[in-house]
């Protein structure tokens, strides 16, 4: 089924009255996900956003609670404010990444209220990629440029209209108001088929990487891999699945707040203990951590590789340290026999 963009836009604008809508917007630094009020603000034709939409669910810097001491009284206030939200135009890689973040923040054992509340109150409208960047490799990571996994509603851009697929009950509820659906023409169906069958040109082989990494903790492979890395967090901050954070106190006189801030394994400050000891004080240990966390530990703990092949880390790296080459390197590394 399809809906014209004109009709869709009207429904979108009407939704804005009840929902906070986060959508791709063209701004100075590139396309990013921001709150919008109208469909006309949405950027239609772009490869992928510069930064992933994860900061909506998991902000880079977030006040968890605030406190104030007056005399002997201490007041503590939690800062969680959640609006019903629509996340619009979410690419398959980022929708899948949210499913991975769910495994960390809203699993059976533990529910992070900040993440969980936002996630639970949001509807994901995914959108297929009509164009595929040469550094995208999602087809190798169990998804594809048109996979609807993780979306509540999934759209395929047909030019003047969208093909609409309602995936979940949440999506169905949001779509209830839309009455203007019509059948696809034969040409449009052909376009949908083309978009759905598209694969990324760039590919990696992760079939056996987890098992290989099981045996690679002490591999000499890690000795040189990291050498050109500048230890910045351009890769981890642009990654839709990286989720390490740090909790600190920001105190001024008799009041303060407990804040959660993104951390990243590339920086020397990562895992620095209060004692001064740092179990990962060398770039070698940090790069091993990055690869192990994504392709080994996360798989053992959560059953999935924590990389969706969005290619953002490749584009943002100032020294062109390409994770696809690192994956190849792991695959080709010789195992050291004791």
């Amino acid at each position, binding site marked *: 089924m399809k809906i014209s963009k004109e009709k869709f836009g009207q429904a979108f604008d009407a939704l804005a009255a009840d929902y906070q809508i986060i959508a791709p917007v063209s701004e*100075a*630094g*590139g396309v990013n996900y921001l709150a919008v009020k109208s469909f006309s603000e949405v950027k239609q034709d772009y*490869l992928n956003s*510069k*930064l992933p939409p994860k900061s909506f669910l998991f902000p*880079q*810097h977030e006040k968890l609670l605030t406190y104030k001491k007056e005399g002997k009284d201490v007041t503590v206030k939690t800062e969680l404010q959640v609006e019903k939200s629509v996340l619009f135009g979410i690419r398959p890689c980022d929708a899948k990444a949210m499913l991975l973040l769910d495994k960390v923040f809203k699993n059976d054992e533990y529910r992070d209220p900040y993440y969980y509340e936002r996630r639970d109150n949001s509807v994901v409208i995914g959108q297929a990629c009509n*164009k595929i*960047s*040469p*550094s995208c490799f999602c087809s190798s990571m169990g998804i594809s440029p048109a996979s609807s996994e993780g979306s509540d509603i999934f759209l395929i851009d047909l030019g003047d209209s969208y093909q609409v697929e309602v995936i979940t009950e949440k999506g169905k509820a949001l779509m209830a108001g839309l009455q203007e659906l019509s059948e696809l023409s034969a040409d449009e169906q052909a376009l949908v088929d083309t978009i759905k069958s598209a694969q990324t040109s760039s590919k990696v082989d992760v079939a056996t990487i987890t098992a290989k990494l099981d045996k690679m903790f002490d591999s000499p492979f890690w000795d*040189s891999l990291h*050498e*050109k890395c*500048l*230890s*910045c*967090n*351009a890769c*981890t*901050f*642009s990654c839709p699945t990286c989720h390490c954070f*740090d909790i*600190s106190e*920001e105190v001024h006189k008799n009041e303060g707040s407990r*804040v959660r*801030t*993104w951390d*990243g394994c590339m*920086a020397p*400050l990562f895992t620095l203990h209060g004692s001064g000891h740092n179990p990962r004080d060398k770039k070698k240990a940090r790069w091993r951590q990055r690869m192990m966390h994504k392709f080994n530990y996360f798989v053992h703990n959560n059953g999935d590789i924590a990389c969706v092949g969005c290619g953002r880390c*490749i*584009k*943002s*790296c*100032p*020294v*062109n*340290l*390409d994770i*696809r*080459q690192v994956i190849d390197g792991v695959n080709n590394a010789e195992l050291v026999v004791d």
Partner: protein
Amino acid sequence: MNSIIEDIRATARQLLTDGKVDVVIGYEKGSLPLSATPCFVRSPQDTDKLIWDETCENNLAAFSTLTQGKKAIIAKGCDSRALVVLLQENQLVRDDLYIIGVSCQGVINKKKIEAETGEILEASINPGKITVKGMECDKEFTFAELKDASCQTCRYPNPVLEDIHIGGLIEVAQQAAVFADVTEMENKTDAERQAYFKEQMSKCIRCYACRNACPLCYCKECFVDCNSPKWLTGGVDSAENLFFQAGRVLHLAGRCVECGACSRACPQDVDIRALNRKMSKDVFNMYHHESGISVEGSGALNEYSADDPEAFLVKE
């Protein structure tokens, strides 16, 4: 460029064969179109992977203080100036350093290409021309159009300190330092400038790629990472980001060699250079100083003299 790369490889091969250095820090072909990536060559047979062209944009001096042992480093003019400052500041041992100097025509700023062609699918460099197949369109650029901003104002394309020079020298057309870009910024109203920097700083994600790409940002603990006192929060907004960027620039006063590595490293395309250039202009006008020109000197703000005429100097 072909004979230059052959000479670089031969020099690197010889240095490693003779055991004069443990490692040669240079560039190899990167994984993306028009990209080079730093490489560390430790055996003579690996020297053939070294490349040299307009894509060699990183300042390799940034690796000089991080790399153990005796090292040879391929240095453009700006890289050599950074090495000079590092030597002045006793961060490097001259005897452990072998500088393979190469004159530089400037490096390509890929962001200029992508602004027109969209993401680069394929590209080739022919003398003076860069042919690009882009996601949106194909286009042929002249090298001059794509030259990075820092290369356009560069007055030191030839290395200022080197142990061997490869290839010819480049004639420097521009005699006196020109700060037209800074003057343009100064001529804006306060409100315009504030709006400009607010927009630029709003893009910053505090990944610190700029700081880490800078060969002269070698502090063991950067002020932004210090938690006692805590100079700034982990908050990422225009004000906090400007505090970081301005603090970094001030710490580079009289030390910045204007290589532009910070701006090129920025994944968010923040105009960091605008701050650096203003600082360079002020240092140039106040102290008649350009950093990293000669090992004999020291940074404009690194000198202490008991004869300093300033009243604030405490004298016995």
